[in-house]
């Protein structure tokens, strides 16, 4: 489904964030991306929908190379990629419904989005998704009136409204407490399975990644240093990803 080949990103400052990364994600696979801060996780997923412009390489979604696209066609390709953010990135001062409908912005003409008159099937779909994430009765509340977990649910609903073929998820639980984190991860994986959606999930909580991911890719200093089943993560591979550290306590927790 998604093919990344030789992808590199060098920032203006000269920092090499990604060095010739090759990665492929098949349909329906939920892949966790782990690695220390600054390893390039966030850059990698932002290079896929070109919120960050890659320096070189290929990003094939289906058979479209996203790197080569002009701005206009990039916009229509971005509709195929749903994104979920660490700080939820909701439009705080708009209602929950407007936030969910904003997922349709790539499909509707400007006047519809300006007057908030979205097509009726978009509205039905938005209601359906709000029901799916359990927020139907909150649809007219302002986003900043919701709790963290609820906001992330709105973020998920917004990404799904796009009707995406791929989900990019950037640290979805970094701002949430452990229980809510698990609820959100469960919801995400259920939805991906329901829809046979592939997802790339940036995550720095290793136990959480092992609990919910089907595959783990470890990134270190812009290079992939691990790629395999969550069970294959052990002291040795964690050291390869994060560097020398006593991993045992965290391993025990993970087995609980």
């Amino acid at each position, binding site marked *: 489904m998604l093919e990344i080949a030789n992808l590199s990103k060098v920032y203006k400052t000269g920092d090499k964030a990604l060095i010739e990364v090759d990665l492929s994600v098949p349909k329906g696979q939920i892949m966790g991306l782990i690695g220390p801060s600054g390893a390039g996780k966030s850059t990698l997923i932002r290079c896929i*929908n070109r*919120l960050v412009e890659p320096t070189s390489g290929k990003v094939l979604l289906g058979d479209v190379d996203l790197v080569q696209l002009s701005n206009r066609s990039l*916009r*229509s*390709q*971005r*509709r195929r*990629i749903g*994104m979920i*953010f660490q*700080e939820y*990135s*909701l*439009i*705080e*001062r*708009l209602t929950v419904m*407007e936030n969910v409908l*904003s*997922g*349709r*912005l*790539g*499909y509707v003409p*400007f006047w519809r*989005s*300006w007057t908030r008159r979205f097509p009726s099937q978009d509205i039905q779909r938005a209601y359906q998704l709000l029901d799916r994430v359990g927020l139907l009765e909150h649809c007219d509340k302002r986003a900043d009136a919701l709790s963290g977990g609820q906001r992330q649910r709105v*973020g998920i609903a*917004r990404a799904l409204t*796009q009707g995406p073929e791929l989900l*990019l998820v950037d640290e979805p639980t970094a701002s949430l407490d452990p229980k809510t984190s698990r609820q959100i991860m469960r919801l995400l994986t259920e939805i991906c399975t329901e829809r046979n959606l592939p997802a790339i999930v940036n995550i720095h909580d290793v136990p959480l990644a092992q609990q919910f991911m089907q595959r783990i890719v470890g990134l270190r200093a812009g290079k992939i240093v691990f790629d395999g089943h969550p069970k294959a993560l052990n002291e040795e591979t964690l050291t390869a990803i994060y560097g020398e550290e006593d991993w045992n306590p965290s391993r025990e927790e993970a087995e609980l």
Partner: protein
Amino acid sequence: MSEISHYSQLWHHRTPRTRLLMWIGWLALIALFVWCWQLMNRETIWFFVADAPRQAADIGNRMWPPRWEYLPELLMPLWDTINIATIGTIGGVVIAVPVAFLAASNTTPSARFLRPIALFIIVTSRSINALIWALLLVAIIGPGLLAGMVAIALRSIGFVGKLLYEAIEEIDPLQVEAVTATGAGRAQIINYGIIPQIMPAFWGISVFRWDINIRESTILGLVGAGGIGLKLQGSLNTLAWGQVTVILLLILCTVVVSEWISAKLRHAII
């Protein structure tokens, strides 16, 4: 370092060098002040200055009691003044919004060409007082309310534009990123990602400027741009000091009321 005598006997707040610089700075300021004072007063006639208390007493006598019968005549000009301020503010805000978007570094379509132009418009408008704009406009389009409104609008562009573009530059970029990721177009990104974030600032700034504009529009009549200032000018020219008192008191009331309204409105917004 066991001997205490090693330390200086005197404790100083600053190092000698900075103290010296500070003294030089203060001396320079005093010298500059004296020089300016002499330059300014080259043509001052000190006899008139000495005479001022007598003049003040004289004016005070003429101003009191206020000529209250004059009040009804002032109501129409007061209405005009409020209209100048309100419509002028609306006009200024309408122009200031696109200027602010051109001037904000995160929304400007061209940082090299359009942004400097927008910034220049803002600086020009801010540097020149509404009364000077009115002076110019009365000369160009003739005396009347229109000149006053346009003057207020021109002065408001810079004020609203500056505060608004600073607000645009301070928005949360993550929300914009999220809207961009959905495949939204440029106008949609502004509509969903930016406008909701700057709305409170926008209303606050506009109401604040309206309050200032009420104050400024009371005097635009001095140069012929309509409103209660015309009456002030007329009364001053005919030395009708009793009427001047009434006008000033009315202006004072208007300003207090508009300040109260603007405080209430801003409180309601935030």
